[in-house]
């Protein structure tokens, strides 16, 4: 078993429980032992609007806690993952800033060293676990499903800090979908934003963005939309009804975390993947699909 520290951030462990359940259920089958690291807190990304230093402090602090335990980090939230990548990028290239941040970390008895390796699910599954091992474990055929991929903006941009996939033409998620027997066609709106970031202060515009992308997915005739971001998933799945009202159309798109779909393909019990917590009509992806 490979030990890897699980850093969930804020949104996953406080409401996106299905994502966490599926991660905890599926990854051990690929030889990963998930370790919960004590003492961590928010990644700081949501506070970047207020003060960049808060973001850097909180991320450096989480990194320091992982480094202390000598663990790699799995950050399944793109927003957290990007905060960690950016903090590392900044602190590793700026000794003075690093000194300042470490001076504050010292008050909590911590030190940022800059030795952490961190992953998102996308690169962990695609690059570390590998497509071949995923193919081996996928027993239940998903043939007949054509699933649209939604990466999440923060997962692929900006490219000048290392991101897990290409910024303009990411393909790893499609490869992972094909590995479990589904199709994943290209669609023009693939890189469109979910709107989550302005839900607080411009909710109608945020939901319009959500609705427009879902309308596009529906129009292209996809069987569903796969996500790897708790913020995007919350918009497309939990808020699909409000998004439909906002854009004045009817929306009926099954939205599923990729890791849930992987679990289904591995023959896992849907309850263990939190499938009852998805608000969108995901039953269609689970039901026997003969003749589809």
């Amino acid at each position: 078993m490979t030990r890897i520290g699980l850093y969930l951030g804020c949104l996953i462990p406080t409401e996106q429980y299905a994502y966490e359940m599926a991660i905890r259920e599926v990854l051990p089958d690929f030889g990963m032992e998930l370790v919960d690291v004590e003492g961590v807190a928010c990644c700081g990304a949501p506070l970047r609007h207020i003060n960049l230093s808060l973001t850097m402090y909180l991320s450096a602090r989480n990194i320091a806690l992982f480094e202390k335990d000598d663990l790699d980090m799995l950050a399944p939230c793109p927003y957290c993952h990007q905060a960690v990548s950016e903090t590392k990028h900044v602190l590793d290239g700026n000794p003075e800033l690093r000194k300042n941040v470490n001076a504050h970390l010292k008050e909590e008895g911590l030190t940022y060293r800059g030795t952490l390796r961190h992953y998102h699910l996308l690169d962990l599954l695609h690059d570390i676990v590998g497509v071949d091992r995923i193919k081996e474990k996928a027993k239940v055929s998903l043939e007949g499903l054509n699933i649209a991929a939604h990466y999440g903006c923060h997962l692929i941009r900006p490219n000048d800090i290392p991101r897990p996939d290409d910024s303009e033409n990411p393909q790893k998620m499609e490869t992972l979908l094909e590995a479990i027997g589904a199709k994943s066609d290209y669609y023009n709106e693939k890189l469109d934003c979910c709107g989550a970031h302005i839900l607080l202060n411009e909710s109608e515009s945020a939901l319009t963005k959500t609705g427009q992308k879902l309308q596009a997915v529906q129009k292209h005739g996809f069987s569903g939309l796969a996500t790897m971001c708790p913020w995007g998933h919350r918009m497309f799945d939990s808020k699909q009804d409000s998004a439909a009202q906002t854009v004045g159309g009817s929306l009926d798109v099954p939205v599923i975390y990729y890791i849930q779909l992987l679990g289904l393909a591995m023959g896992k019990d849907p309850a263990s993947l939190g499938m009852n917590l998805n608000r969108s009509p995901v039953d269609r992806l689970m039901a026997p699909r003969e003749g589809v």
Partner: protein
Amino acid sequence: MTIVDLTSMAKPEEKQQDRVNVIVKALNEDVPGDCYQCGKCTSGCEAFILLELEPHKVMALSKSGFIDELLNSKVLWTCVTCMKCKERCPQNLAPVDVIFALKNVAVASGKQIHTGYSNMLQAVLGTGYIQKPKEVVGRENDTATRDGLGLPPLPQPKDMQKLQQALMKAATETLR
């Protein structure tokens, strides 16, 4: 937001411009000086059509130091942070980071912000997270909680008061 200021007799606000530049430079990004107004950022901006955010104008005003108008404008807060502007700028500039920096300067100079943001800050200072674990409702209207689902307890900062103090210091002393 308009670029009227550029042709008026307004004087640049150099102190605030410096502050914006300090924050942008901390991220290893260049300040807006090299922007030649090609508009590529705005053409791909996810907030442009719905919310009229025009990153190239933000860059023009920041470059010239006419930022008071920006600090008072709601438009900064319409950025969805998709980062396409930063990805696509032919000059390797980062409009999204300039917008973030402007928001930071607006907050530091006491401009009123949406309560949603201040609530998140309060929550992090109080508990370490932006919200507490919630009860959620599935599609068959069944409710679920973290405990009820058998998930382990949320990790907690060991000493919340120390974290709070460190955060307060970090906020004012990290970038000088």
